[in-house]
Structures are given as structure tokens and as C-alpha cells.
């Protein structure tokens, strides 16, 4: 009944490390954590991992399995096939202490920023009276086991260190909601959520709800009701920006970008870079603004700087490397840069990104475009399809669909190509890559309207 599984586990700390390969026995009914323990007992006694209850009750054993945030003690091996390589990496949003153990102190810091339960002063212990129906709403949020998977997955902080200061994250939005809905709490939590905890930065993607092992409806039951109430109270969310002066132009830049005003975004970001040429947020926004304008060649200069300044942190370097490789490839596709000239840089950057990535799938879309540029159409299709399975946000999915459509068209599969293209258009009609791609496809008789 047992078999040997192939595991890839991140070994190292925040500055250096790599995925190490293991072959390890798996027995009936086991979960990922059992396998990690077997590795400790038989192959790597010093492999660091956190756990306590092994029953999904304490929220200690959070990690990413094949790129998905999960509790290792509740992830059964039977959800994977026997020949699948299972990659286990630490939570991406937090600095790695060692191996699978991350520094989650951010969360304890945020916990301290939420003012405590404030009952009516005149009520003596033993006199509290509440109806079951009234406590149930808050009880849902008190099921939280503080696994911080939602914090890890939320894109506002996942790859944006700079947002951490002003954003408490979904775990603490439910804490605020819990207090807000507590029948006996006397404080105004509504303004607080927006004013000090960054509720306004949440754009209701629901990723947090999807990963919550306690099945707490974080978005529907906590965030959305709180947002509605905040609107009710007519509070101006921009006021708090005033207190964040040093960051202001970077913030303003990313706000303009979000509003679709890429030129203002570009100007603001450049303004910020004059003060601090290595500002990660401003560089990222500038690259994005340039890409949005279809200026991939210019954007690739920015992503190069970004990579140079990314430091030694695994996640930041991986992100910068993959952004740079992607941007260069777009510039090639668009004809702004010649493939022969850029190929060495693309290849080394992509290799670097791959070495740092938690799974192959994260970079599948980039590999697809790379293959496409080299005319390796079948490989391009395969990678693009893999990428699409894992894609989380609209624009990445749209991009991968575009790559897929081009590769399929090249292979003569015009129907499939057209349907990929139409989905891509629906998802992101303003994709700047489309200008070049449209012409290509129309040459090959694939409709792109």
C-alpha cells in the first residue's frame, strides 16, 4: 500500500537556499505533514517545520503545496497522483526563518493595532445576556485558527511589502467585523477599519475566502458588510494618505495606474524615483505604466533596474526576475527588441527566476511566450495550457490565452485559437500586447474582433 513519492522542499532562509529533491515513502491515509515528519526522522533531522495539533485546529503548519497556501496536516496525499512531484515551500508573504518556517510577526503586530473588546462599563460579570442568533455572526469569525493563509494569499500584501504598513489583511478584517457585530461592543469599528487598517485597499478578489481552512466567508460576511457600512458613514478614505507623505508620489502613482491613467502614473513614479532611484514600488508601477502603454522596450529597462535592486530575498528576486524576463519577451514580440540580442539575458533571467520559484507552474506563462518567440509552437501550447490552469488573476490569464492563441494559430488550429482569443479579449480588452498580436493572427486568418 505504500509507495515512494517525489518531494521538492525549500531548504534555506530568506537570503539563500534552493529546492531540494527527496524520494520518500508514503503510507495509506497520510497527509503532507506526515511525509515532512518522515523526512525529518529518516533523511534530514534538521528540516524546520512548525506544527502542533496535527488536526487542523491550531493553524501552525501553514505552507504552500504546489504553490497553493494550505495546512500541511489537512492535505491528504491521496489528493495527488503517485507520480506527481510535490513541491512544498514556505508562505510567500512572510520572510523565511528557515526551510518551511516563516516569520509571521507581522500578524501579531497587526493584532495589537486592533483596539480590544469594549463592553458597557456598567455590566457586571455574569450579567451578560445575548441571544444565540446575535452571537452567531461573530462566532463565525472566532473560528479563525490564525493560520494566516488568507494573509499569505491576499495580493495586496503577498508581493507588496510596501503595503504591509497600512494594510491589516483579511485576518484582521474579520477581527474588526467580529467586534463590530458583537452584541455588546461599544466602539465604532466602521471608520476604524477604513481609516487605520486599509480596508479600502481590498478589492474583493475573494482569494482569502478560497484558502480559509475554517471556511469562514471572509469577503461576503465580513469585508463586504464592513465596506457597505463605511460608505454609509460617508467617510473620506483619502484623508489618511496625508499622514503618509514620504510614500505619497508612489501611492499616487499606483492610484493613477489603477484608474487607468498610465501617463500620470508614469509621471508620478518618475517623480518618486528622483528622490529614491531604487524605490521598489515606484519601479514596479513605472514598469507597469510603460507596459500598459505598449512601451515594452522602455519597460524592460525599468525591470532591469528593478532586478538589480531586488536584494537577496527569495520572493522579491523571483518576482523581479520573472517580471524582467516577461517584459523582454513582450518587447521581442512587439518587434522593439531583437531576439538574438536579448536571448542571453532572457535565458539567464528566466533561469534565475526558475531557481527561486516555488513551483514550475508560476513561470509556465513566461516559458510559453519564450517558446513561442523561438517558434517552438507545441511547447508553447503545452506551457500556456499549464499556466492557464493555475492562473489567478484576469490579466495574467488573458496574457496566457493570447500566447496560446498565437501558438495554436501557428499550428493551424484556428478554431481553438479563435476561442482562446475571444476569451482573452473579454478578460482584458485593453491588453497592450494585442496591437502586435492582432496583426499576426489576422495574417493567419484568425478573427480577433
Amino acid at each position, binding site marked *: 500500500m505504500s509507495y515512494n513519492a517525489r518531494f521538492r522542499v525549500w531548504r534555506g*532562509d530568506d537570503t539563500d537556499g534552493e529546492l531540494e529533491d527527496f524520494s520518500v515513502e508514503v*503510507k*495509506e*491515509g*497520510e*497527509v503532507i505533514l*506526515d511525509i515532512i515528519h518522515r523526512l*525529518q*526522522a*529518516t533523511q534530514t*533531522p*534538521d*528540516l*524546520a*517545520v*512548525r*506544527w*502542533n*495539533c*496535527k*488536526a*487542523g*485546529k*491550531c*493553524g*501552525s503548519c501553514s505552507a504552500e503545496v504546489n504553490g497553493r497556501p494550505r495546512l500541511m496536516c*489537512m492535505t*491528504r496525499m491521496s489528493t495527488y497522483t503517485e507520480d506527481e512531484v510535490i513541491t512544498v515551500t514556505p508562505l510567500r508573504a512572510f520572510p523565511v*526563518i*528557515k*526551510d518551511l*518556517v516563516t*516569520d*509571521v510577526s507581522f500578524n*501579531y503586530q497587526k*493584532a*495589537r493595532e486592533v*483596539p*480590544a*473588546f469594549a*463592553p458597557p462599563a456598567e*455590566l457586571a*460579570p*455574569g450579567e*451578560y*445576556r*445575548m*441571544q*444565540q442568533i446575535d*452571537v452567531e455572526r*461573530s*462566532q463565525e469569525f*472566532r*473560528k*479563525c*485558527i*490564525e493560520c494566516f493563509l488568507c494573509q499569505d494569499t491576499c495580493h495586496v500584501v503577498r508581493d507588496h511589502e510596501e503595503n504591509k504598513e497600512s494594510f491589516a489583511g483579511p485576518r484582521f478584517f474579520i477581527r474588526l467585523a467580529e*467586534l463590530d457585530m*458583537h452584541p455588546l461592543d461599544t466602539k465604532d469599528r466602521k471608520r476604524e477599519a477604513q481609516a487605520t487598517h486599509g480596508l479600502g485597499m481590498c478589492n474583493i478578489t475573494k482569494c482569502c475566502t478560497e484558502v480559509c481552512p475554517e471556511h469562514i466567508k471572509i469577503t461576503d460576511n465580513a469585508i463586504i458588510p464592513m465596506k457597505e457600512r463605511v460608505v454609509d458613514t460617508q467617510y473620506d478614505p483619502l484623508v489618511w494618505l496625508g499622514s503618509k507623505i514620504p510614500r505619497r508620489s508612489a501611492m499616487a502613482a499606483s492610484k493613477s495606474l489603477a484608474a487607468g491613467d498610465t501617463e500620470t502614473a508614469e509621471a508620478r513614479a518618475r517623480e518618486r524615483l528622483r528622490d529614491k532611484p531604487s524605490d521598489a514600488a515606484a519601479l514596479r508601477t513605472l514598469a507597469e505604466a510603460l507596459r500598459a502603454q505598449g512601451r515594452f522596450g522602455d519597460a524592460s529597462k525599468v525591470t532591469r533596474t528593478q532586478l538589480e535592486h531586488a536584494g537577496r530575498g527569495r520572493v522579491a528576486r523571483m518576482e523581479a526576475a520573472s517580471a524582467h524576463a516577461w517584459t523582454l519577451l513582450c518587447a521581442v514580440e512587439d518587434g522593439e527588441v531583437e531576439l538574438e540580442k536579448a536571448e542571453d539575458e532572457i535565458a539567464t533571467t528566466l533561469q534565475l527566476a526558475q531557481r527561486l520559484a516555488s513551483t514550475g507552474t508560476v513561470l509556465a506563462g513566461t516559458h510559453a511566450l519564450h517558446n513561442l518567440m523561438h517558434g517552438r509552437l507545441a511547447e508553447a501550447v503545452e506551457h500556456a495550457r499549464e499556466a492557464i490552469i493555475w492562473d489567478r488573476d484576469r490579466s495574467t490569464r488573458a496574457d496566457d490565452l493570447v500566447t496560446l492563441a498565437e501558438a495554436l494559430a501557428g499550428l493551424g488550429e484556428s478554431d481553438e485559437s479563435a476561442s482562446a482569443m475571444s476569451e482573452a479579449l473579454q478578460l482584458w480588452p485593453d491588453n497592450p500586447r494585442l496591437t502586435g498580436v492582432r496583426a499576426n493572427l489576422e495574417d493567419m486568418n484568425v478573427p480577433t474582433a
Partner: protein
Amino acid sequence: MTEIQRHRFDVVVIGAGGAGLRAAIEARLQGKRTAIVCKSLFGKAHTVMAEGGAAAAMGNVNSKDNWQVHFRDTMRGGKFMNHWRMAELHAKEAPDRVWELETYGALFDRTKDGKISQRNFGGHEYPRLAHVGDRTGLEMIRTLQQKIVSLQQEDQREHGDAEALVKVFAETTITALLKDDATGGSGRISGAVGYTRENGTFVVFEAPAVVLATGGIGKSFKVTSNSWEYTGDGHALAMKAGATLLNMEFVQFHPTGMVWPPSVKGILVTESVRGDGGVLKNSEGKRFMFEYVPAVFRKQYAETEQEADAWYDDQANNRRPPELLPRDEVARAINSEVKAGRGSPAGGVFLDIASRLPAEAIRKKLPSMYHQFKELADVDITAEPMEVGPTCHYVMGGVEVDPDTAAATVPGLFAAGECSGGMHGSNRLGGNSLSDLLVFGRRAGLSAAEYVDALGSARPTVTDADVEDARTQAEAPFAGTGGENPYAIHADLQQMMHDLVGIIRTKDEVERALAGLEELKARAAKISVPGDKVFNPGWHLSLDLPNMLIVSECIARSALIREESRGGHTRDDYPTMSPEWRKVNLVCRPDGAGVEVTQQPLPVMPPELLSLFDREELSKYMTDDELAILPEEKA
């Protein structure tokens, strides 16, 4: 020399479970600078796993409940080996401690009139457990954690520093307690030494008062509901500091742990399943518990299925179902059924709630059990029975303390919660631990603060030599290479304790275990671990192992001496309770590299408490001499 961090506190609380947090809150409320030290992250201590509830005679569901009834149930559950004073304080103070949690923000399930709801549990005469679904421990730990945070917010406002009075040292393991003997003191506590998991740095706490709240010992056994933290550290630290342990032979095997799949064997199936109507059946489909009601409980338990089922709706006119007997009885019954060949395929028995409650009600009342079986065993408990069997769950034995002050026998040392002894006698009732944590956690924090006040400026000091000693010992596993593997020794210890000192014991087997322990100790002295001190689990385990070994030895030695069967100690060769042995506490103290066990009289219950029981019941437990002090008319 490795860097050593030094801190000064008034009170150091070791442990951040219910007992530790409640102690720390109290010490802080008394104005003491308090450190909380724990092995895991803040909020992850074992208490988080408690499911069923916290027992407190609030009388919200049945107004006949009061502290006297709770006291009686507790003494009966412990087979009258409890320290009567602890049981009394516990029963009297539990309601206040639970209500207090509401003021910190806890949200218990409610009755129709808006009070805290209470549920039935084994051995409790009335519905008594305050609960939140089946995640009461989580509610408790989060509430106490948030109370600490709120105190820190107050300190931030007042002193400009959130950690001015209370600081949490998470993922920090204490490896030794320090005393002032070296500086000519009188053997008082002067502090504690430990290391941080994150980077292996050593930490010294200079403090005149230390509260142990380190929980239990289950990791010495193979099948257990306990987590890696339960390596008996507090028990071992206390012994090494010269304090005594009480009645270590009493280990509770919870009757219902998961038995399948193998990797989750031991994980708890809460007693609430039975409290809410679940029944135990053998492979022949028979509700076998009716056959196992012992004479001392015959009066309180139903004799027919009809009566047992009627009890759930009408408790005044029916007796309780035998599935709700105290845990030791149910665990032994399951053990016997399996031995007799009437077990389930995976070697347990069946626990059936599916045929007893509608699916919706099961999901509502037992959400985390539903979840646990669905995700870990692929079993839908609303449609099919669970397979369950005994699992090592709780240690009744622990640090000998004064009931009112929680003080151990070493000045400056206090203990509360599962690591202390006496409160639960030979067997703990479900739900009595969470309330115990609150009652005695608070008392320990209060007494520690008073002790510090009484010292004034005459505080004991820590010497560098002591610290250096502790550090050298902790670094020993790195000294060589190619030595013993700590994981292998641990696995062998667990298997041996399971086989030879488990739920049913004999002289011969316990003696073999003692010999085996000597071998394991010798192997443990030769451990070597690779890697460095940064978050190195192999190293951590090799420092926990000596604690497990010394605790295992305490259990085995005491088990050999107590020649009777009572609560969490069953001797196949002495199958009945003996009134003579009831009068005897077994006390462990270190003896060279081993353990010495001596006999000490059990404190005598005063007549006013004795008179809460009728003579006939007491006569099943006590000798005629003891009963002589009862007023005649009670006879």
C-alpha cells in the same frame, strides 16, 4: 562563547495555554512585570485543541446545579483521590472565572434566555459545560490572548511601551530553572534559562517567581491525542529544581480517539459526541456499555436502552446512559471488547451518532468532528459510524502544590494547569481541565505576585556559572557525530510505554519497562544531531527527550508501587480498588540519575465536605476507621 540574552522580570510564566495566560493576566493586574514563555507561537498552545467545554456550576440549564454537586462529581470521578481542597476551590470559583471570560470578549453558545449554555458530559450530574460548538479551547485561548493584547494596549497608552509590563517570548523553550544556592541563598528560585527556536540564542530570565504551566506528558506514549509540546518539561524542570511530583501513575486514556487511518491514530473524538447522544457499539452491533457499569456507579446509570435514551429529554426521571461513565471506565470497556474479538476492522469499536441525530443537527453541534472525519478519514459521520479506541490524553499526576496558593515545595516556584497534581485525583472529568486552568492559573499568578511583594528588595540572584552550566548541557548534542538518532529513541520510548505501561499494567511488564528505560537513558546520553542551532527540530527533540524519560520513569515506578486499580491506573494483577491504598499519595523526587518514590498520606477531607456524600457511597471507597468520624445519623 555564544551570545546570551538577559532579561529581568518579577514573574516568569512558563507556558501560554489557559493556565499560563490566566496566571500572567493576574500577575500583570497585580502590577508585576511578567514574562510569558512558550515553545510554540502565541495562541497555539495545547489548550487550543480542547473541544467539549469548561465545567462550571452556573446552573444556567438546570438550576439545581451548584458547587456542592460539582464538587461531589469531581471527587467521584477522581475516585476520592483528589486533594479535597483543590476540588472545593475549583467547584466554588469556576463560575466566576467563566463569566470573567465574557468580559474579555468570549462568545459562548447561549441558552434561550440569553445566558451561557451548558452541555452534558461524562460524570457530571447536570449539564455543566460552557462551550462554543466543539471548539471551546480555541475560544478560551483566543480570549485570553486578546486580553493580554488589551493589557498591552493599556500599557502602551500609559507607559509608551506595549511590552512595559507583559512580554511574550514565543518559540522559546526553558531548559533549566535556576536557584540561589550557589550565592549562599536558601534554595529559592532565582530564574530560568532557555533557548529560542528561531536562532538558537540562549535566554536568561532573572526572576524571583516562576509559574509552571507547561501542560502534559502524552508524547511519551505512541497513541496520544497530545501534540509535540507535551514532553513533560514542567514536570521534569520542577523535579530537577528539587520540587516533588504527585501520583504520576494516574494517566488518562481517553476512550475515543481516532483509530484509522494509521497516521491520525490517537487524534481525539470529543466526548460531546456521546454527550449529545452518540452510542458505542461492538462488531455485533450491541451497545455494550450496559455490561460495564461498576458497582460504585450502579445507582446513577441506566440499566436499559430505553431508560438511557429517555434521559436525554427528561433527566429528572431517568438515569444517565452508561456511555457517559467516567473516562477510565469507558476506556477499559472498549479495551475489553476489542480484546474479546468484538472490535471494529481497524481495532476499535463503533461510535454511532449518525443513527441518533438528523444530519443537520450533527453538523451544527459537532462541526469540527464532522470536518475532522471528512477530511482525515473520508468518513461522513452523519451517515456512518466512526471507529474509535483509547488514546493517551491527560496526566492527573503532576507538581505537588499547596491548594490555595499553587506553590510548589521550592520557594518561588508555582504550578498550575495540567502540569500540577492533586486536583483530579486518579481520573479527571471531561471539562474539569479548562475550568481548572482558569481557577488555579489565577491563583498561581496572584500568589506569585504576593510572594514577590513579600521579598521586597531581597531578591535571589543568578550566577554566571549556573547559566553557563545550563548552556553547556543544552549544546551537548552538537558535540559529537555519528551518535544516536533522537527520533529513533523517541519512537522506541513511545512504543515501549504503550506496550508495557499503557492502559492495563502488570508487575512484570512495568519492571521490563523500567529496565528498558535504563537502556534508553544510556542511548540518550549518546545522541548527536547534525545542523546548527537555527530552528533545528532534531536538536529540540534531543533536549525534550530527557524530560520524557524522567517522566516515564516516574510513571513506571509509581505504577509498580501502587498495587490496586483506580482511575487512570489499572493493574491486571490487582484488579480492584483498595481503601488502604486510597489513603496514600505517591511522591516522586530525583535520586541521582533516577527517581525515588515515597509514600505520603492523602490529606483528609473535613467532615462538612464528607457529609455531602451518603455513608453507603463513601463506604465503597474508605476504610471503617475513616468513616468513624461521620456523625452516626448519616449511617
